[in-house]
């Protein structure tokens, strides 16, 4: 097994073999989460700082639990309670944290590329927990893990990703990851939410949702990020739900055993009807559960790479 990434900044930097190594490692760690004593001593004595400049419950909690189950010490810093509100720059914040010698910094930031910027300037490993509209690698990896768990393999699957592709770092990471693993990716959303030229990254583009999800193995719905956009992209949420919402009727167009996925948090009645969100095909909570195992794998794998290497 060869894994030589000190940082996890994006799926784009990972090879297919790296992704398989991460998923296989996560498979081994998953068993710990069902034990009575959910803790192994693997990362004892390591310090992990969760540096979150944007609101997050799921991802931050997931990374925190993952670190704790591996016996690392995890510390959370959120922007609202930190010196960021006092005007400190990202680099100064990072240097100050680094002076306390953490082993891994898990960062979420509103600016695309913020994690690369940090990784170039400090000695600790950096794991990207979402940077702007760029990448969200741990989410894509847990999506792949969940698909592999239910479908056995990822190669050859048809995956439809529906929603605000332009603002979605999840869509971008999933697109890279699925392409590397040999799946067919369809992207679907209103024209205002579809970045120009994204088909060059290896996807088929649809504006008609029915066509996009027809015979798909996986339908991945994205959240409409109300906090990230003005009113210009959408006339009304009701209209969006009508044309790009997943409901019991249009889900029938996908394969009968198609999986319904969502990175959360769900806007019920907008991109997902409650019948579908709670229906038998949804694996949304499996995604959350698998997220802990996948993040344990990432923390473990970057810890094994010597600081002098890379």
């Amino acid at each position, binding site marked *: 097994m060869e894994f030589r990434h000190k940082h996890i900044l994006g799926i784009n930097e990972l090879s297919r073999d790296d992704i398989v190594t991460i998923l296989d490692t996560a498979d*081994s760690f998953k*068993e*710990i989460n069902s*034990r009575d004593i959910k803790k192994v001593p*693997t990362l004892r004595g390591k310090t992990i700082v969760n540096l979150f400049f944007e609101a997050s419950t799921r991802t931050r909690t997931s990374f925190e639990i993952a670190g704790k189950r591996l016996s690392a010490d995890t510390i959370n810093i959120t922007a609202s309670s930190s010196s960021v509100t006092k005007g400190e720059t990202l680099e100064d914040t990072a240097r100050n944290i680094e002076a306390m010698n953490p082993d891994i910094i898990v960062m979420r930031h509103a600016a695309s590329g913020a994690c690369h910027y940090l990784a170039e300037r400090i000695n600790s490993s950096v794991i990207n927990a979402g940077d702007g509209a760029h990448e969200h690698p741990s989410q894509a990896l847990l999506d792949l893990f969940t698909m592999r768990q239910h479908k056995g393999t990822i190669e050859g699957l048809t995956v439809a990703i529906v929603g605000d592709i332009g603002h979605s770092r999840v869509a971008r990471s999933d697109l890279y990851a699925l392409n590397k693993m040999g799946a067919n990716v369809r992207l679907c959303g209103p024209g205002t939410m579809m970045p120009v030229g994204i088909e060059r990254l290896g996807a088929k583009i649809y504006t008609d949702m029915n066509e996009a999800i027809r015979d798909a193995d996986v339908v991945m719905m994205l959240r409409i990020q109300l906090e990230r956009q003005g009113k210009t992209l959408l006339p009304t949420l009701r209209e969006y739900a009508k044309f790009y919402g997943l409901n019991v009727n249009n889900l029938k167009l996908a394969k009968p055993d198609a999986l319904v996925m969502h990175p959360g948090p769900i806007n019920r009645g907008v991109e997902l009807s409650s019948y579908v969100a709670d229906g038998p095909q949804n694996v949304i909570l499996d995604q959350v559960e698998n997220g802990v195992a996948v993040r344990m794998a990432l923390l*473990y794998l970057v*810890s*094994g790479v010597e600081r002098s290497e890379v």
Partner: protein
Amino acid sequence: MTYSTTVILDGPGVGRALTRIAHEILEYNKGVGNLALVGIRSGGDRLAAELCRRIEQIEGKTAPLGAIDIGMYRDDLASRGTVEVGRTEVPFSLDGKNIVLVDDVLFTGRTIRAAMDALIDLGRPRTIQLAVLIDRGHRELPIRPDYVGRNLPTSRDEKIDVIFNADNCAAEVRLLKPQV
């Protein structure tokens, strides 16, 4: 580096050693009653399965069988870099059981230390016993086996290979001496 190879145990030799160990386990524990076997990946788990088959042939009853991976419990993560972590599968409760931990080669004892930590995280066995196919010496921790297939004094630079056939049965044990 090149090695010269000596066969220490052939297929029938391994079989006889395992049969004797199976008898000794049953004698010491007075039957299958509260017994369970747990093999350490990725050689001990296959030997544990062979011991389990023999115990069933002798007693007519089966003992529960599990496998653990000690990757997560190693004490050398920093110096060795990332090692592959495999799956731990112990589909029964360890509480109150007499556990026989099975490994192929006993060397420094550090693997066994890690395996005992792993077992104790899963439950509270009444006893943990240790069965190994080869004890090659050079212990670094106060650990001793209860059941041994063959004691084999070695030097540190020699290697022991336990070869398994396609049915996951131990077919041969080889000693590899480095050629100067």
